[in-house]
């Protein structure tokens, strides 16, 4: 195991991998996990303005029970908030200002490009389950949950949306939407040029942004054109971004997972062919390159105020959600 994976370990146990593709919502999240997730909420390190009154402290002064400040009365102010005691003492009108509690906007962006349909356990299945769990947490905490998938060949390669759902009862709807996303490459139906890349998808999301909130990007971030430009679109101030890099065990340690001999590697996205002969020096070079790639991305994320979380698809979902992401400050 490479250095970065040793230090930033996301593999918590060696439980058997989940191979089955989810067909029902129950396959994405089970009742036991749901009950445990009821206790958890999504945390934003920033305080954003919500749209409707919610359970979250807002920047706005409003009508919650939490006192914030006084200010002089001006015409038009709600007389209900005048502090009459002060008026009695000072004969001047002051208005009590309370902290507003609002909802949180949670946007989960799922990379549905063909490269995600790879690995054992499958990276996309892992991303689906993680999105489902995080979405569920958002719903139960009355946050405004939006979901975006991009690059899915089965759906024409464009950006798919599920916008602004709230409340636990929308869980099934969200689950169905997640199940519909399919990164399986289909050479017949998709023109590769129409597939939206990461940069365009992020630009799209940034342009369509309604309000502010937490954005979680689930992807392997193995983009040949780079991830920097895309992340720059979404880190402009609108979102508290969490970049969750999902990698399969085969990508982390190819030698230990049956990658050997003389191979013709075919990129599932652009069909790029690479002929290699697996040798110890090549494996070492690969590991070094992967470490360097991940380290570079983490550095980039730190500079941009993005939280970078590296996840192995072998990771147990319960532990990831209830322990690791809490430690990393995404959940509480």
């Amino acid at each position, binding site marked *: 195991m490479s250095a970065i994976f040793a230090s930033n370990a996301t593999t918590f146990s060696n439980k058997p991998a989940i191979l089955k593709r989810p067909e029902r919502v129950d396959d994405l999240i089970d009742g036991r996990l749901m009950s445990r997730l009821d206790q958890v909420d999504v945390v934003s390190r920033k305080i954003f303005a919500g749209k409707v009154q919610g359970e979250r402290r807002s920047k706005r002064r409003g009508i919650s029970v939490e006192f914030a400040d006084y200010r002089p009365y001006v015409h038009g102010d709600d007389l209900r908030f005048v502090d009459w005691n002060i008026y009695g003492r000072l004969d001047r009108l002051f208005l009590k200002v309370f902290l507003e509690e609002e909802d949180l906007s949670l946007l989960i962006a799922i990379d549905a490009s063909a*490269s995600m349909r790879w690995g054992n356990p499958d990276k996309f299945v892992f991303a689906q389950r993680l999105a489902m769990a995080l979405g569920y947490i958002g719903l139960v905490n009355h946050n405004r949950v939006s979901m975006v998938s991009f690059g899915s060949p089965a759906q024409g390669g464009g950006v798919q949306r599920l916008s602004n759902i709230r409340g636990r009862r929308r869980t099934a709807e969200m689950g169905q939407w997640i199940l519909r996303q399919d990164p399986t490459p289909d050479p017949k139906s998709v023109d590769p040029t129409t597939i939206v890349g990461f940069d365009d998808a992020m630009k799209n999301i940034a342009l369509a942004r309604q309000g502010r909130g937490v954005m979680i990007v689930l992807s392997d971030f*193995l983009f040949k054109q780079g991830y920097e430009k895309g992340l720059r679109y979404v880190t402009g101030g609108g979102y508290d971004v969490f970049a969750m890099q999902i990698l399969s065990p085969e990508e982390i340690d190819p030698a230990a997972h049956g990658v050997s001999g003389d191979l013709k590697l075919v990129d599932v996205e652009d069909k*790029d062919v690479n002929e290699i002969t697996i040798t110890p020096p090549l494996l070492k070079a690969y590991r070094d*390159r992967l470490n360097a*790639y991940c380290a570079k991305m983490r550095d980039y994320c730190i500079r941009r105020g993005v939280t970078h979380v590296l996840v192995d698809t072998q990771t147990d979902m319960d532990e990831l959600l209830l322990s690791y992401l809490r430690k990393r400050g995404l959940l509480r």
Partner: protein
Amino acid sequence: MMWLTPLTGILLAAATIPPLVALYFLKLRRVPRPIASTLLWKRSLEDLRANAPFQRLRMNILLLLQLLVLGLLAFALAQPQVETGLRRDGKTVILIDNSASMNATDVSENKDDPEAKQKSRLDLAKADAIARVEKLFGGSGLFSGSAGEVMVIAFADRAEVRCPFSDSRSQVIDAIRGIQPTDGRTKIGEALQLARAYTTSVDPDKVDPTMVEQAALVIFSDGRIADLAEQATKAGEQITYARIGTMKADNVGVVAIAAERSPDDPDRIQVFGAIGNGNPFEIRADVQLSVDDRARAITPEPLVVPAANSGAAPEVDPAKRMSDVRVTPGREQVVFLPFAQPRDAIITVTQLRKDDLAVDDAAALVVPPAKRLRVGHVNAAKGLLDLLLGEMALESYEQLSPAEFEQVIKDATFERFDVFVLENYTPSDGVELPPGRYLSFGGTPVPELKSYGEHERVFFRTARQDHPVFRAVNPVDLWVASAQAISPPRDVEVLMEGTEGPLMFAVDRGGVRVLHVAFDPMNSNWPISRSFVNFVPNALEWLGAAGDALALAGLQPGESAVVRLPVSATNVTLVFPDGHDQPVSITTPGQFAYGPIRRTGIYTISWDEPGRSERQQRRFAANLLNAQEGMIVPAESLSFADKPVQGTATSNARSALWPVLLGVAMVLLLLEWWVYQRRTS
């Protein structure tokens, strides 16, 4: 580099290497494997290539190994030979030195190796030459190919063609095996002439009729060649010098021996010797004197012989210094006390120090019995000569008139005289000098010395001072009023020359030995000089000992033995030093001739003589007595007059290159398998 079967190798290479490379050009059948993104793999490959400059090479290490294996196999099948200077096609002349120094037993650096002690340098040279011939013919068995023609010449003081150009392997090898050791000196000139003669062919149809087919000459020798500086290589001639012998060769030998009976007391013999040291360091050797194989005396203390002197700076490596041909051996004289020996005897001087060359460790002389001369003086004029002869210690002295002398010839009673002194005597018509020894003043004793006129007022110019007759004779003041003008034939030796022409001759023909002085002493100032008084006894002694001269001086290998025998001798046999005998036919009455002498030792001639019941015999010795031949440290290079030819050390253990190549190929094959296993596992 030489290839015995290049075609096989080329065929194998052509049949296998291009297909192998072609197979590699075909794409490896790789397993297609979909992957989420090739992003990281692509960059890893780039990293790997950027970090490893030989990545492409390493990627194809299997191809490289397989190419190497195939290349080596093809190389091995072509049977490469790394012998330099060896040419397969064309002509090769193998020259093997079988001189005395090649009898040295320093073939192995390991002096304690008992097997090596058995072998001489010649054995090694023959083995090396056979190995070379085997290689020329491509070895024996499956891979043998045809060779060019090979000629074998053995050379010592004479060269001998052992086998003319032949393409028969067995004939050449038999010829090499048949080379026998000799104790001769090393001379290469004749061998080179022979080799060149055989490689030159004349085509009368061509404008330039002489065609020289350049041959490769391979010389197996220790490089101690006396006449090397007189030889030049020819343009295009390819000479290889296979150096035989080790640089640690150690030799001390007897380089001179002489025995003399005292004129006053002929029963006593005094023996002189000299020991030569061929080593670059001082040695101590005991020297022993034996008479008839019984030790008579030994030096009371070991004789100290100085190191051989090269004249080079002392810091020069001794081995290198000794390899220089110009080195002069160290030399020390030894003199034994006179001892009484009236009878004839074989005197042997032996140095007792162990060394690598045995042949020069002893030298022998046959000393004739003590005797005085019987002299006949023909046509004696009353004068100084008459007086001189009368006063000499002779067995008998008789004066004869020319008529009496010719009567003696007619009666065949001339054998009662050892020497005749002829004074102004010219034989009458029809009379010829019989076999015998003559000191002649003036006249024309033999037709070869017929004068064509007279020279007036002749002064002495030069004399053969090394000749025995000039011992203690220095005729520098000689002046002759009138001398015979003689133009001698080539085979007549001129011993003294005057300003106008030769003055003294030695003729040796068919048992007739004449020492002729071309003037009457009374016509010169010679009789009043002391040199004349010394000359006459010297001349008589030299002539008188002529039969025994051989015995006194001994022979050197390469020379011919000429021994005076009684005219009536029959059934002549020569017994060699190793004991075997050989009947010899006498072509010239009264003279035995055999040559050249090959080995050192005591030779015995025996014959029957009418009137004597027992076989008569006479012995003579052949000794090496050659300091240069005793320098046995091999020369590093052959310094021909025009250029040096560097020597290559030879050894017995040499093998063809192909087994090594096959071995390496197999190791590479194993390596290739291992690399493949490592990759696929």
